[in-house]
């Protein structure tokens, strides 16, 4: 995004794998942090520290971000955003997604982690396409 200032927007959808211990917790953590205005900061921390996403680690990240620890912990333990996460999951299932990450760049599907150049090519194509 730094290479294309002002031209790209990014939106996340949670698709936690059901058989991983911390996937749902991490998704909840993201949304709980978002309630306190630190959505993207929590995203960055979790991406950097993955797979260290157990409950205690997530709470430590919240502390690092200076979130209200009590509120965050309550949200985490109660899975306050369970419905929102489920909506994203249902959408992913309905779209037959089988891998994460899966990207949609102006609706074009890209499955899995790809080299930067791969994304750049698609972005360049889309920028040219949008200009028409």
């Amino acid at each position, binding site marked *: 995004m730094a290479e294309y200032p002002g031209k790209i927007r990014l939106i996340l*959808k*949670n698709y936690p794998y059901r058989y991983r211990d*911390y996937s749902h917790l*991490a998704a909840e953590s993201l949304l709980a942090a978002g309630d306190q205005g630190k959505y993207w900061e929590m995203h960055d921390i979790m991406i950097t520290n993955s797979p260290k*996403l157990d409950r205690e680690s997530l709470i430590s990240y919240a502390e690092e971000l200076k979130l209200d620890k009590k509120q965050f912990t309550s949200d985490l333990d109660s899975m306050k955003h369970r419905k929102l996460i489920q909506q994203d999951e249902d959408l992913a299932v309905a779209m037959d997604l089988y891998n994460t990450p899966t990207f*949609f*760049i102006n609706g074009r599907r890209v499955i899995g982690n790809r080299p930067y150049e791969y994304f750049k090519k698609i972005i360049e194509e889309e920028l040219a396409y949008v200009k028409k």
Partner: protein
Amino acid sequence: MKAKRDIKYNVPFCFLFLGGFPMCRKLLLAFLFVFFLFSPGYAAEERYSIPIDNCPILGPENAQITIIEFLDFQ
């Protein structure tokens, strides 16, 4: 009395039959030409429309490129 076959099963045979007539052959060729000329457009990559209501957005709302990522942090 022989029962009539449903017309839909006769379509491929119609094309073969029509190819026997010069004018129809020209029309058929023209049709195939136009079809294959424009078929790359129809064969273009599928684009998905994904709802993003109330989702946090990083970047400008009116950005030319929208990237939606389905992810699992673990």
